[in-house]
């Protein structure tokens, strides 16, 4: 791997994410806030209570979604697979819809905001987990990964339909809360919630690294894996576990963020010219972090007061990349 410039890009982007934002802070102020406590109080607060947690959240989310996408693409041998292909995102969305709109029905809509935040994350996670448990149960009966892929897409559509139904019957305020969640945001993940997200994502990333050896065999076909004496269903469940930890946690805390998971593994394959997962998984992680932090910088629209939804920015960044990959290689190869 002779792509040493990539970590430098990441460091630059991390710095950029700390230095640029809606509020213009001077360079020396930021440096002193980072190094000590002798800067003005508000600079210190913006940096340590807002920008650094937001940067770490973006970093974790980018790594998680990209690594998750790479595993899904290999498992299903499908270049269009992404972290949400098994219906994880709509499971999470359904959980959030139940929570947000259910609590407004029960008259709990005006509870403290930490309760709303925590409830949103918890229900999103439970929704994702529920979908994953259905998939794992089904995977015992369904032998082929392609059949599972179709099942995942079906569950996803069913989830979206149910969400539509709940939306139709819900009040305006609850609807707004829900729609805001779907747009994605890194700004709400601080303190304890960041710690929880970090533990879940890092566990998921750890399991993904353990999966590398099996992924290298699975890309050559399930039959080959079986002939090497690998218990394919166990490996598959381990991959699902990692996926749910990664995509489920990011979705729970930041909302459904699309396109990073599908686009980044393709960029990694193109850039490193090596689909060996020993290169692809860490490569996707670092490029995912770069992409996500860049999306965060853009979404903050430095110097202006407005903030764009992260989900939209990520999609607008991801789509051209996919189109470029397709045109450059004439085909997306796995």
């Amino acid at each position, binding site marked *: 791997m002779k792509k040493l410039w990539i970590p430098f890009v990441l460091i630059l982007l991390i710095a950029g994410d700390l230095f640029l934002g809606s509020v213009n802070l001077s360079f020396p102020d930021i440096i002193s806030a980072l190094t000590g406590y002798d800067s003005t109080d508000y600079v210190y607060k913006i940096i340590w209570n807002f920008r650094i947690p937001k940067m770490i959240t973006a970093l974790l989310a980018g790594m998680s979604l990209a690594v998750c996408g790479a595993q899904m693409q290999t498992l299903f041998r499908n270049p269009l697979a992404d972290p949400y292909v098994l219906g994880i995102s709509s499971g999470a969305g359904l959980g959030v819809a139940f929570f947000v709109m259910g609590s407004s029905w029960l008259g709990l809509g005006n509870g403290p905001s930490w309760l709303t935040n925590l409830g949103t994350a918890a229900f999103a996670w439970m929704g994702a987990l529920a979908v994953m448990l259905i998939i794992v149960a089904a995977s015992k009966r369904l032998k082929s990964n392609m059949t599972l892929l179709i099942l995942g897409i079906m569950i996803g559509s069913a989830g979206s339909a149910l969400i539509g139904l709940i939306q139709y019957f819900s009040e305006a305020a609850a609807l707004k809360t829900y729609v805001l969640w779907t747009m994605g945001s890194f700004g709400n993940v601080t303190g304890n919630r960041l710690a929880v997200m970090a533990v879940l994502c890092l566990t998921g990333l750890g399991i993904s690294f353990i999966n590398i050896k099996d992924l290298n065999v699975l*890309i050559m076909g399930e039959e080959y894996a079986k002939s090497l004496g690998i218990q394919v269903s166990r490996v598959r469940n381990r991959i699902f576990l990692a996926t749910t930890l990664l995509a489920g946690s990011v979705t729970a805390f930041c909302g459904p963020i699309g396109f990073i998971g599908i686009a980044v593994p393709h960029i990694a394959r193109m850039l490193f010219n090596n689909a060996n997962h020993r290169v692809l998984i860490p490569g996707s992680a670092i490029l995912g972090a770069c992409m996500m932090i860049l999306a965060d910088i853009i979404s903050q629209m430095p110097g202006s007061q407005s903030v764009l939804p992260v989900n939209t920015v990520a999609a607008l960044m991801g789509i051209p990349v996919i189109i470029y990959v397709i045109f450059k290689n004439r085909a997306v190869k796995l």
Partner: protein
Amino acid sequence: MTPCLDIYALSIGYSKKQILFEDITLQLLCGKITGILGPNGIGKSTLLKTIAGLLPPLKGSVIPQGLPHDRDLCAFVPAQPWRAANFSVEDTVSTGRYRYTNWLGLENPLGKQIIAGVLEKTGIAHLAGRNSADLSDGEFHRVAIARALVQDTPLILLDEPTAFLDIANKQATVLLLKKLAVEENKGILFSTHDLSLAMQHCDLFWIMTPDKKMFFGTPAEMNRQKIIDRLY
């Protein structure tokens, strides 16, 4: 003549309702190259996959002979092995050593030596660093055989190894298999529709006739007993 494997009263197929072939009792020999002949759909691939453990036997059993318990019985080479794009030949072959590599799939120096040796033996050493997606069918088939070879099993099963190859590559592949049988005492079992090639190179035949009977013997015997004629 040591046996690698005893097959006893084996019934094969994809489900109990759809048994393809019943009551197969046979022995497979080490150091010999055995060809399975039979019409399409008779169950040649199913038999190979059942022996390889990819399909469960519907009845009867496949019993390895003289196999250390920490080793696999056989490696399986499918008719059209799946390629992974942007995967070097060396890395592809290395996945065959799944049992022996560390948790990340990295090779120790001995493993690297084994792989280099197998690439040499299968005549693809010059392709080691190439992207497997860029190889021809004949070249990639050799990669698949190399990948089976590094699994270090007493038995190698191949499903129609010559089906998608041109004449020169067919000859080369079968000669390679023959060399492995003679020099490394491997049992080689493959299915084929290429009768003349099989007559020329196989030590033994397993013939599955359309009336669902199994015959075995040397090609000359099979010819003398007019069993080969039953295929047509």
